[in-house]
């Protein structure tokens, strides 16, 4: 039964660059303001990927004017134009949450 579910979900999956927690990525999100649409870019470090198939989410963290900001996106949402890999890092943790408590980063 799960195979059938996966087959149905597969048609909704987007082709995404490979990236894993610890990598720095640039998320291109389509945002509509009124009638206009533009692409908003959010660049940060991947904290985690959770879920599978169409439900997979990715949490990206960056420090914006001294304040840590985290955004969580559905990886396969049609509103996400691209997730661009900027730099790959080796991490020892599967979920590098320690970054939240680091005094200085980037």
């Amino acid at each position, binding site marked *: *039964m*799960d195979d*059938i*579910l996966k*087959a*149905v*979900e597969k048609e*909704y999956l987007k082709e995404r660059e490979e990236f894993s927690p610890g990598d720095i990525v640039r998320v291109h999100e389509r945002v509509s303001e009124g009638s206009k649409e533009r692409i908003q870019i959010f660049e940060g470090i991947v904290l985690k990927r959770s879920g599978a*198939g*169409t*439900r997979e989410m990715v949490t990206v963290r960056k420090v914006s004017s001294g304040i840590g900001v985290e955004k969580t996106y*559905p990886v*396969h*949402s*049609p*509103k996400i134009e691209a997730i661009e890999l900027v730099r790959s890092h080796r991490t020892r943790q599967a979920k590098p949450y320690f970054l939240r408590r680091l005094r200085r980063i980037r």
Partner: protein
Amino acid sequence: MALGILARKIGMTQLFVDDRAVGATVMETQPCTVVQVKTLETDGYNALQLGYQEVAERKVTHPLQGHYKKAGVPSHRHLFEVRVDDPSAYKVGDKIGVEIFSEGAKIDVTGISRGLGFQGVVKRWNFAGGPKSHGSHFHRRPGSVGNCVEPGRVVKGKKLPGHTGNHRVTIKKVRVLRVDPERNLLVFKGSTPGPRGSVLQLRKSDG
């Protein structure tokens, strides 16, 4: 009118429709066979009797074996009826599959809900229950069930604890998201009664 088929619930997932994530149920089916055509003249109403899921003859009871033999179709695990306006358009042995539904159309989904056993009034009827603490001893009780001497009995239909679930539930006007006649799949928005693997009726909605 309400042409329909039987299908098996595969499970739920989340799909993107018009840039939005929606919860969706995936159903798998096999084309249903027309076993009997009921007409106004012979039966008093117009309907089709459909069989779902072919099985070996020995798997069905003797009376049913006779019924299938008379129709000249293989034995099926499930039999059910759908009302139709024009029974002359169908004949015994015809196959009806998911192609009768179109994407974006509304359907009614009928199934048996999960049996929950004997449940209290909070789960069964969504009573609020009492405070959990602050000296309260009234936690999940039903409270008063009626008056005193007049009427001197509990009114019929009073919501009380009892067996919950395992009854027939119909969800009306569910939007079909995808139809795949090749793989015999149908996907619709929202949830359904019953666990995965249960057999549900899918019918075209009226109007």
